[in-house]
């Protein structure tokens, strides 16, 4: 039995940390303030191999394990949650559906660029009327000759409107049931709406999408018709572990910054960390970070073993994202007034954390999954 990541994992972690601290950290506050999506960072992460970690070498990937991807997301997220979600969604929602369900031809068309971080893909599941209840999708696709005609709208779609977005995969209802389709950017009939004004994740790209007689060739149908619901649920399971890693990066950053500040900041002639009220809240935070780490990498390990991950992914996502939100609250409190000012990164983490409890399945939905796994008759 071992609770340690391998030496290779740690060597990789130190490269990603170095990259994040040198290439991201000096600019994060500005990107956030200007709501700027730094395309060049996506390409740089691609060159590091981050978008291709879990994909086989034949598609230009690194042939690595899921734990490596979690390490990358955690380390990027420790410095910048916006680039962390860009990576997480780019891999999990952009490339992964094509890799998992695409035909050889579809993979050849889209996968190499997605895997290299040259382009980004998005996944449009959520609709104005269908979020947690994703099966309530009302977007419709109909076959006219050799084309599918898609009508409907999607809400809150990450990476859908960047200058390097190549595809949006959408779920739509067909006569066979819920089915996935790949829509290339700039396809007539697909309108990417202006970006949302968000509480956090300012440097991440999120748009609503209107589909108005949007026509795609029959060859853009992804996976089996009618299997769209089951397919996206399994995509989300992977995504939940990735969000857990992102939340872990957030919690860890808050712990590190708070410990440092608590040792330096003097009040009543002593470091604030000399007060048990402050020190103990950080002790509790250390426990939460340790738990979050163990749950995240346990889930990643199960995934790498080819085991069932549904329950473990839900547990990791639930615990870690709630720990991250708590961590940002504790860190802001430890920083006092400075924690409320944008010059300190804890203020940005405070704004960025809340969405972690909402995206890729809210905390309530995770509890539902876990409760069902207990055999409870919960609806």
């Amino acid at each position, binding site marked *: 039995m071992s609770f340690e990541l391998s030496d*290779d994992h740690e060597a990789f972690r130190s490269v990603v940390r170095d*990259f994040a601290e040198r290439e991201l950290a000096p600019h994060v506050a500005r990107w956030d303030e200007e709501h700027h999506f730094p395309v060049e960072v996506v390409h740089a992460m691609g060159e590091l*191999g981050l978008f*291709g970690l879990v994909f086989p070498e034949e598609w230009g990937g*690194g*042939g*690595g394990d899921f734990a490596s991807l979690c390490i990358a997301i955690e380390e990027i997220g420790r410095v910048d949650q916006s680039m962390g979600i860009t990576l997480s969604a780019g891999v999990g929602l952009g490339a992964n559906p094509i890799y998992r369900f695409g035909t050889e031809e579809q993979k050849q068309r889209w996968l190499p660029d997605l895997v290299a971080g040259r382009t980004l893909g998005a996944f449009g599941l959520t609709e104005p009327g269908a979020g947690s209840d994703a099966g309530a999708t009302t977007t419709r696709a109909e076959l006219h000759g050799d084309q599918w005609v898609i009508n409907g709208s999607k809400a809150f779609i990450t990476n859908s409107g960047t200058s390097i977005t190549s595809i949006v995969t959408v779920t739509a209802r067909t006569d066979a049931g819920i089915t996935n389709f790949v829509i290339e950017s700039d396809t007539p009939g697909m309108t990417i709406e202006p970006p949302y004004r968000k509480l956090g994740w300012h440097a991440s790209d999120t748009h609503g999408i209107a589909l108005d007689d949007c026509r795609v060739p029959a060859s853009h149908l992804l996976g089996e018709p009618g299997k769209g619901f089951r397919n996206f649920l399994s995509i989300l399971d992977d995504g939940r572990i990735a969000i857990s890693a992102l939340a872990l990066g957030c919690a860890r950053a808050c712990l590190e910054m708070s410990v440092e500040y608590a040792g330096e900041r003097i009040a009543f002639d002593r470091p604030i960390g000399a007060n048990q009220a402050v020190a103990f809240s950080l002790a509790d935070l250390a426990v939460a970070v340790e738990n979050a780490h163990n749950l995240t990498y346990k889930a990643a390990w199960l995934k790498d073993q080819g085991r069932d991950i549904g329950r473990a992914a839900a547990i990791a996502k639930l615990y870690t994202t709630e720990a991250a939100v708590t961590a940002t609250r504790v860190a802001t409190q430890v920083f006092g007034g400075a924690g409320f000012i944008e010059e300190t990164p804890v203020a940005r983490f405070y704004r960025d954390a809340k969405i972690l409890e909402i995206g890729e399945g809210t905390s309530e939905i995770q509890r539902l999954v876990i409760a069902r796994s207990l055999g409870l008759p919960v609806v």
Partner: protein
Amino acid sequence: MNVIVCVKQIPDPASPGELDPSSNTLKRDGKLILDESDGYGVEMALQLVDTAGGGEVSIISMAPNGEVSGMRTALAMGAVKGVLVSDPELAGSDALTTAKVLAAAVKKIGDADLVLAGTESSDGYTGTVPEQMAEVLGLPSVTFAKTVTIDGETLKVERQTEAGYDEVTCPLPAVVSVTAGVVEPRYPSFKGIMAAKSKPVDTVTAADLGITPVGWAGARQEIVDVAQAPEREAGEIIEDDGETFTKIVQYLDGLKVI
């Protein structure tokens, strides 16, 4: 175009270093990492081989306890193989012995068109090893390179000086020391890190290379004393009276940075 780069593996500067009081030398028994100032040489070598359109980059290192962690970083960046000289006998080696050992390692790899090294390492340094190595190898030595280009059989170096740079040409092979910061070392990619594990590193002793005596026995240099570095002096504050820029220009001129 085959380039050999000398890389030093040093204790992580992020964690406080410790001196061994009996020898006044830095303790190096923990995990070692690639000296940042050697990352530039590795990057420059990779670029030169790339431009030449063929050949390979090899690395050599002398380090205690069979340590290869830092070498793996250079291999992950793209070097193809390495020679590590690791030998308890080497403890206490002075700069000249180090140069002899590294020169022998250069010969062991063989077939080098160019040998690169940092101008000085960042942990404990004399700033003389590359030049001594050139002498031992009987090769020309060029120091403080800020750019290196190859023109057929000729090496062209922009050599940094206090006032600017000299343009130096010399025949190949040669030993060149590279100034820190002149290129942007690449980050090793995930694939590079994984591939580095299976790249060959030949570990040899000083005796294998035919270099004796080494270590304390061979050292002609001894560290007799160490002292705290002086505290940094407070900076000079110039009140702005509208003409301050002339004083700043004077000051920078005095430092020979402009």
